[in-house]
């Protein structure tokens, strides 16, 4: 069920539901300087001082309510910010807004006034590429330390220069100087970067008023390991594929690999054999179950504290999935199983054993899930902690670009597996789960119910794979040994990862390596909603909200 009201068709949409770019250009009038052709959508080139006006018109009048990502890059002669716009109702309707800025003075108007999510995206663009955004509420570095010199993804960056990083956040919270001057009742507390409840190395700067949170600022970048740079210096064909496993490392590897595979395959026009698509779909859903299990297990850890039964049960079930995936891919965690145009190898022999093992797991899954429901969702203590805490209204979720279980827990009916179909999903029967509670409870519930749906998908895939004729088991399309897409091909493609919309922007320059590789991470966007959920709430509720967001710092920081 969705909270959204039914609407009349937007401006710029034809009767068939396709985008009419000419009508959109008319809507924007003189703001459009030029039009570009990207693989996924058309790009409207606009002037750097008309960003807010253009995006606001597109949002209000043409229904582009989802700023999926902001990509910044430097060319020989200019800087460029690309705003990838989509619609929550139909994510196949895409539009890129391209904002070139001069190389000697890269200043562009900020979009933070139109989309809340632009705030962090633009900070990242400033940090890594060096474009400045005028009118941005708080333009400072986000991933790198504030004392960093230079912008690492700009062209003249010298990686060998020394850097100095301060350790400032060691102030004693009881000291006078940690209080806000005009409000002596407040106290400043660092949560993280080493803290058991931050799911990794997140640092949350909180200002407390008694037990309540007066102000909250997530500080990220403690795991910024240059994933984009790594991908930019690797070749399309084989070298990039191992990296996606390490973005969202909660066993969601195959889901991430699919994001890259989808973008690269669409860029190079590779048709994936159907049999490989079924294997991909099955293994991706196994990953989703494993990822959600850990989310549920650690959420319980945050709520109840210590290593309790639910966490142990979640790990027990994950071990079963990891065994299945290890049989299939050869690795427990970093699968590196997909290849451009297919998968690395077929199901393990003897196939019957693999099917039996996977079916055994699926047969037990309903009982396991019931167990989790008994221990969690129908537990009174759990309910007291999570119902009506960490409320995220759907409008704000949209504005912050929240996707995945976070959006679906706020009643936004948005799932790329159904709305922008890829793989074998549109041939299978399954449901998109949404919950209208908008609170921590809904988000946990969505994950538990999604596991059930993933189980349905895997079951159908197993049936298909079992009956697949032996001579027809093609796992790999014919792909050239070296892949060199046409110069200046640009593409933005997203898949539904475990945490939400995982998108990849790539631009080719005619070589076998991408000239720009940008990762749109769902956790990065979801984490931005934390202040909305937590300000004014109690501090234990903030911990619960953080747990229900289910962030992975590897993906937040990349």
């Amino acid at each position, binding site marked *: 069920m969705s909270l959204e009201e039914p609407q009349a068709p937007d401006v710029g949409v034809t009767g068939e539901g396709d985008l009419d770019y000419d009508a959109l250009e008319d809507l924007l009038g003189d703001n459009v300087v030029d039009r570009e052709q990207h693989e996924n959508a058309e790009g409207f080139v606009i002037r750097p001082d008309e960003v807010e006006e253009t995006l606001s018109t597109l949002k209000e009048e043409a229904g582009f309510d989802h700023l999926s990502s902001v990509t910044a890059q430097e060319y020989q002669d200019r800087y460029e910010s690309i705003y990838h716009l989509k619609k929550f109702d139909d994510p196949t309707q895409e539009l890129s807004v391209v904002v070139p800025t001069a190389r000697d003075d890269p200043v562009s108007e900020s979009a933070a006034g139109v989309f809340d999510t632009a705030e962090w995206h633009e900070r990242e663009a400033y940090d890594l590429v060096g474009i400045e955004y005028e009118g941005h509420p708080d333009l400072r570095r986000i991933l*790198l*330390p*504030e*004392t*960093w*010199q230079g912008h*690492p993804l700009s062209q003249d*960056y010298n*990686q*060998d*220069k*020394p*850097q*100095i*990083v*301060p*350790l*400032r956040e*060691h102030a004693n919270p009881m000291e006078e100087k940690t209080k806000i001057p005009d409000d002596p009742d407040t106290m400043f507390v660092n949560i993280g*970067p*080493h803290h*058991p409840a931050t*799911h*990794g*190395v997140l640092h949350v700067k909180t200002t407390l008023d008694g037990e309540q949170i007066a102000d909250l600022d997530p500080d990220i*970048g*403690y*795991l*910024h*390991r*240059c*994933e984009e*740079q*790594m991908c930019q*210096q690797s070749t399309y064909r084989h070298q990039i594929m*191992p*990296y996606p496993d*390490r973005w969202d*490392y*909660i*066993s969601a590897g195959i889901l991430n690999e699919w994001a890259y595979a989808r973008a690269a395959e669409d860029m190079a026009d590779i048709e994936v054999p159907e049999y490989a698509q079924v294997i991909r779909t099955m293994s991706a859903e196994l990953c989703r179950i494993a990822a959600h299990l*850990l989310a549920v297990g650690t959420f319980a850890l945050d709520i109840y504290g210590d*290593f309790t039964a639910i*966490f*142990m049960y979640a*790990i*027990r079930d*994950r*071990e079963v999935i*990891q065994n299945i995936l290890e049989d299939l891919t050869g690795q*427990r*965690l*970093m699968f590196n199983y997909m290849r451009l145009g297919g998968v690395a190898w077929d199901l393990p022999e003897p196939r019957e054993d693999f099917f039996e093992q996977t079916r055994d797991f699926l047969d037990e899954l309903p009982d396991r899930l019931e167990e989790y429901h008994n221990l969690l969702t129908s537990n009174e203590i759990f309910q007291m902690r999570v119902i009506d805490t960490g409320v995220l209204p759907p409008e704000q979720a949209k504005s912050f670009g929240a996707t995945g279980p976070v959006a679906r827990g706020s009643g936004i009916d948005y799932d790329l597996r159904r709305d922008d179909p890829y793989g074998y999903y549109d041939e299978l029967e399954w449901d998109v789960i949404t919950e209208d509670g908008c609170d921590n409870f809904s988000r946990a519930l969505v994950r538990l119910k999604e596991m059930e749906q993933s189980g349905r998908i895997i079951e159908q895939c197993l049936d298909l794979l079992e009956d697949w004729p032996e001579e027809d088991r093609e796992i790999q399309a014919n792909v050239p040994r070296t892949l060199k897409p046409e110069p200046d091909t640009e593409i933005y493609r997203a898949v539904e990862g475990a945490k939400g919309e995982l998108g990849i922007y790539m631009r080719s320059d005619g070589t076998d390596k991408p000239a720009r590789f940008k990762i749109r991470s769902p956790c990065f966007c979801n984490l931005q909603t934390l202040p909305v959920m937590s300000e004014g709430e109690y501090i234990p509720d903030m911990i619960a909200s953080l747990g229900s967001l289910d962030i992975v*710092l*590897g993906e937040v920081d990349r």
Partner: protein
Amino acid sequence: MSNDTELHDTLEQAQSTQEARMGEGVDERFNSTLRQAFGHTPFILTKFDKFMNWVRGSSMFMLLFGIACCSIEMMHTYAVKHDLDRFGAGVPRASPRQADVIIVPGTIVSKFAPRLKRVYDQMPEPKFVVSMGSCTISGGPFQEGYNVIKGAEEVIPVDIHVPGCPPRPEALIYGVAKLQERVANGETAPVTVKPYELEEFGDLEQDELVQQLASEVDDDDLVMRFNWADSP
């Protein structure tokens, strides 16, 4: 026990070794088969150092510390099936002040390195370090990254390296067991190559970069200076 006669009498009368140790009427729970095996001479003769090492190696308190991908496998190592606790080394402590082993599970980047050093410094002596995964050996797959520290040893001393990306839980257990063995034998020899230290900003050599940052950083702020060109 005031004199020899009384002591002799007590030993004569002792029906259980427990009474010999603690007098009559003590709860049965304080007894044990091991204790009974010692009979009326409950003494062990050993070197103090050897005894302390054995104790240290048999009861290791790990720091609950997750960085990146490896921490997922580390969680699996702590939890059911692999259950590191079987080896007397699996109770994670949330505070560094209660821990004596730190497993470093993941990539260390420039912003985190000073914090890692700080957490390590907060642990009481004696402390041991197990570095988990390729990233903590050399930077692993991210070695060429502009922001990645080329191994944990650049910041803190390391006792045991567990290679892998990520290492399987079995590998981590092997690494921890190996550490326990070495501790029990008094063999620890942590590898120390620490080019990066926490220093006060004012103590840094006055080069171009320091002068540039002078307006942003206070003289008594703690900083870490990374010399990327000298990294392996």
